[in-house]
């Protein structure tokens, strides 16, 4: 069982809609991530938050807007998406490690997004 909870599990939205994906963890982790995964492809990193500050943005289009309200919550705000943005969106968390450490990442079950 995962200790990273994502809601909703499924989301269908139109290209003019505004919606949000939510993620919550209670493991005391201070690094949180959004990954995007297309069918039969590996997950691709989108954003990393470390101690509630955005530390990595992998050149993600501005129609995706992340937010980390506190150390347990991570949101991904969606606006004016395109059909090609349809994918599985995975949230994850880990303990930030010392430089060069690289810790285990714990994933949620994902949110399936369909843009119509």
């Amino acid at each position, binding site marked *: 069982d995962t200790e990273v909870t994502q809601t909703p599990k499924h989301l269908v939205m139109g290209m003019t809609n505004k919606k949000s994906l939510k993620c919550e963890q209670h493991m005391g982790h201070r690094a949180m991530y959004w990954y995007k995964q297309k069918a*039969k492809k590996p997950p691709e990193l989108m954003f*990393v938050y470390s101690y509630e500050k955005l530390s*990595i943005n992998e050149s993600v289009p501005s129609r995706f807007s992340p937010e980390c309200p506190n150390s347990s919550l991570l949101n991904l705000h969606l606006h004016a998406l395109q059909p090609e943005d349809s994918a599985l969106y*995975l949230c994850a968390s880990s303990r930030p490690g010392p430089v060069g450490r*690289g810790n285990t*990442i714990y994933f949620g079950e*994902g949110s399936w997004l369909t843009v119509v």
Partner: protein
Amino acid sequence: SQQGEEDPQALSIQEGENATMNCSYKTSINNLQWYRQNSGRGLVHLILIRSNEREKHSGRLRVTLDTSKKSSSLLITASRAADTASYFCATYPPFGNEKLTFGTGTRLTIIP
């Protein structure tokens, strides 16, 4: 961009046989991890091997790492139907940001 490539892309074996998957990566690493993903689900961490380690075991899993060849292998012994999943290797860069990058993955099917 993907750091690692895995082969084979797909593998089907009979239950009880051993399954071996290989991962090659491009740049130096801090550590290499293996994850499993059941169809349409989240990823589950299996095992982590550090760049100064050559082999690691966890239950029916055996991972090797050859940093000179920039490659790793994952061996699952005595496979079970429940092992059917996609398996990904993933690496961190050596200088400590939180950017875990996944390989292309191997889809493993265990035939009962």
